[in-house]
């Protein structure tokens, strides 16, 4: 195997865990804040929601069901389909049982 191929294989292998949910954490945070938090915020029209509102398994189950407003509408009627994956990645990565050690500043 050439060095280039080895590098690509290595990058693919190491990238896999990051892409487990198939979306972007950075974009997911953006869409969550821009769309979801427009209602799900303190004093908003719906109950406050943060990533810590559910465990990783609960978020995965929520997105698997794909329902919004207690089943009254589909989730992808609120978020575009590609945004749903990003938001799911963000929420799962920062769920109430996620490994997310605190840091200094930053």
């Amino acid at each position: 195997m050439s060095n280039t191929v080895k590098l690509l294989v290595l990058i693919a292998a190491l990238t896999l865990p990051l892409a487990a949910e198939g979306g972007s954490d950075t974009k997911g945070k953006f869409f969550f804040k821009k769309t979801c938090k427009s209602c799900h915020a303190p004093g908003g029209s719906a109950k406050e929601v943060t990533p810590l509102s559910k465990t990783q398994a609960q978020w995965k189950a929520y997105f698997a069901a794909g329902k919004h407003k207690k089943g009254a509408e589909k989730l992808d009627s609120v978020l575009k389909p590609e945004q749903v994956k990003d938001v799911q990645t963000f929420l799962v990565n920062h769920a109430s049982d996620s490994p997310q050690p605190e840091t200094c500043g930053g």
Partner: protein
Amino acid sequence: MGTTRMDRRLFLKATGATAGAAASIQVGCLSYFKKGRSATADRREVPTTCELCPNKCSAIAVVEGGLVKKLNPNPENPKSRDMLCARGNAAIKQVYDPDRIKQPMIRVGARGEGKWKPVSWDEAFDFAAKKLAEVKEKHGPQASLWSSTEGFQEVFFKNLGLAFGSPNIVRHPTLCLASVNLAYSMTFGTVPSFDLLNSRYVIMSGANRFESIITPDTMDLIGGVMERKAKLIYLDPRFTVTAAKADEWYPIKPGTDLAFILAMIHVIIKENRHSKDFIAAYTTGFDLLAEHVKSYTPEWAEKETEIPAKDIIRIAREFSDAAPRSLYYAGRRSSWYQNDFQMRRAQAILNAIVGNWDQVGGMVPNAKLPKGEFLFMPWDEPKAPRVDEIDKHFPLAAKGDGVYLKLRENVLSGKPYPVKAWMVYKQDPMNAMPDQAKTLKMIEGMDFIGVIDVAMSDMAWYADVVFPESAYLERTDPVEVMAGIWPAVVYRQQVVKPIHDTKPNLEIVQGLAKRLGLSDYFDYTIEQWVDAEFKELPIPMAAEHMKKHGVWAASGQPSYGKTLTPDHRFVTKTGKIEIFSERLKEAGHDPLPVYASPEQPPADRFRLILGRVGYFTHANHSNNVWLHEFMKENDLWINPKSAAKLGILNGAIVDVTSSVGSVKLKARVTEEIRPDCVFMLHGFGKKSKMQSLVYNVGASDAVILETAWDKVSGNAAFHETFVKVTNA
């Protein structure tokens, strides 16, 4: 002009001659200004936020004739305790420092030679963007490294690295407190604050809080100890100022603190002194702990630590008797040994089993305050994995921070891929990382190095282009929530216009972004950013309030016990405080702290131990003319018995040599250190001639420190170097 004046003599008088006298600092300054204040037409007071250390105290700048004349504490921030320390006062001299970088510069000689060409901002941006683009074209965006340390404008720098497409953002925590952060996060799901103001019994392991960093919680501790409210037990191989003020000092054998803590846990459980109700309601894994510590007896620990078993037993009893107002204090200090994470875990577990969580005088989860957020356009995630292979080697560590020393090893080896460009913001890896020769080798291997900083650090000295950042008193920064027992929202606003051709970091980032085709991600002003943050502060006329007061601290009163409810879920895998950690087990680490005796130095060598002093922040500010008055040079502490064997006299120049380097220092022969250790202070021996007061004065510990890290967090282990000491 008015009569308000702050010269060197007055500064020294006002701030006291030693850090130990810091309690008088604010009194001295305030009384002076009460007497010396006079009205002048152009006199202004501008509330802002100090930047000279991580504590971020609120300050009020006094401006006259367009110059910053004085910095006063801002009493509206309860966390600041109405104080501004020596460093905080000396921030004026950061602005008016003749050594400052006064305009962008491009290197014209060899790296480190100190030959520079002053250039315009356009030239500097064009040069850097061209070099970064070349590296990206040849090796991919992951071949760029973006190093930074904490600061209110750090976010813009990190975002530039990510938008550029690099996963290699590496921050300071693994050269600082990553082991603490990870250990407490793994146990409690968060890193709490320590209620030193109300604690009645405090144990510290090598965190020299009365001397190494003087912040408002130092004052809490000094108040507690001096008024005899609290008992302070202090473990340190060196007799520090903290040792002098402690009730009991134990010159513990280096690297054995974990044995001391495990023996304390043993005594507390054996004597049924643990908090049973708390453990049952909020923790998981206690039974496994009880079994685990059976062999860690005080008698065993005496042999490891050289602390008498009877004292360990008594301290364990006193600690549990004082609970919940007792604390095994975690910070502030970096990691000393390769078992530092497990030592911190043991501290966290000891604290947990006496039930001091979320209690007055105990550990308190940090309260937060709401603020808005500016939503900027998000970029595609970097595609490559991190060069430090954090997922493979440190799967539990904070991904966004990276692991500094492993990163350097991989960059030097060129595996898993080459890194050829290094951008640095506000950090000095030349002094912050052990083994300076390796850092220099890493520098040699770079096709491009750019540094953004206020002063010409050693790292900047070795750069290809230097972007001068405006000092904090010259710029407006993002709003920050300082979480804690006394949470506050703080605002840093421009006090005076930049006196040189400098820019705030955001504008430097935008200058680069524009030339790299990344402008869309940075299409905002600092005013728009700050306004978005003000918008969600739950106070009327928030922007006006913050500009007028510089701080909002809600009620200013601490609250305790909010997490002590049956339905509270800790941010851990089980939702409980994890005494036993499944997650550690899954990652191949000890799920409960296991002790191993540290390696000891051979007969002809000493363990090198380090420390900080409250006049400086790490390797910064030793070139500040006012702070330099307090300490002009570092030296080598050595015990008289050891010195006598080697024929070393007090004041003699000695060579201090490790496997990676050698430095010369003056010997300080003193009983105040164990015979098996020598000590030196961090922050001297600079290579940058634009640190003129400390250029080639004393020595940098980075030259002789060897590379070692904590196995779980990757935190650099700074006390794992053995050195030879000989007369020069």
